[in-house]
């Protein structure tokens, strides 16, 4: 097994062990890959609840630098992947982290947001690529529609859902 491929997931777990981040969950394109199909991406988006007493990402960057990993664009290059740490800005992201699924990447256990939360986050972002991915998750039966509606309702994403339906005339 090529260690470069899973190194990022190992380091994310290390950051949690060291208390530099609290709970976390992988979202974005990599979460989509887990539930559906491979797509072109090199970013691992990690929603994280920062460690107690930590209110910035700088300790994460310092620790990464100590290990020899360099910042790249909005993230840190760790092996094959560029990892973006995103402090959970709202209750939706926080709950997505809390409810995440434990998932195996090779020998490493990581956490990935549930597909219904992933779809809600993509509806919230609302970019064309997000809409296409929501379509795919629904079309391929990768999520529980009732649970998705519950999440949409709970986090006030009804307008986004209506937009989504209008855009695709669904």
């Amino acid at each position: 097994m090529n260690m470069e491929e899973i190194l990022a997931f190992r380091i994310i777990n290390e950051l949690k062990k060291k208390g530099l981040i609290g709970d976390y969950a992988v979202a974005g394109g990599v979460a989509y890959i887990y539930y559906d199909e491979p797509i072109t991406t090199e970013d691992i988006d990690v929603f994280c609840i920062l460690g107690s007493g930590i209110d910035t990402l700088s300790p994460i960057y310092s620790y990464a630098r100590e290990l020899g990993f360099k910042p790249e664009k909005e993230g840190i290059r760790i092996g094959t992947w560029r990892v973006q740490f995103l402090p959970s800005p709202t209750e939706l992201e926080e709950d997505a982290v809390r409810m995440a699924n434990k998932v195996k990447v090779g020998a490493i256990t990581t956490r990935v947001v549930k597909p219904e939360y992933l779809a809600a986050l993509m509806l919230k972002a609302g970019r064309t690529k997000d809409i296409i991915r929501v379509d795919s998750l629904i079309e391929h039966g990768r999520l529980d529609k009732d649970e998705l509606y519950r999440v949409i309702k709970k986090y006030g994403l009804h307008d986004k859902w209506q937009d989504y339906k209008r855009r695709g005339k669904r």
Partner: protein
Amino acid sequence: MAGLQEERKEMKRRSFLEKLRISAAMQKESKIIKKGRIIKPAQKRENYQTDYRQKASE
């Protein structure tokens, strides 16, 4: 259609790591294509300029 369904089933069966490998390979390939697209017009321009200079010196 049946082929597509089979492919989807196969994709579901694949492990996360396998799918990540495919994704990383796709990313690498798209970078090469992008790079090619960026270089091509510049090379073309350079070739035109070389041709022009050669013709001018003749």
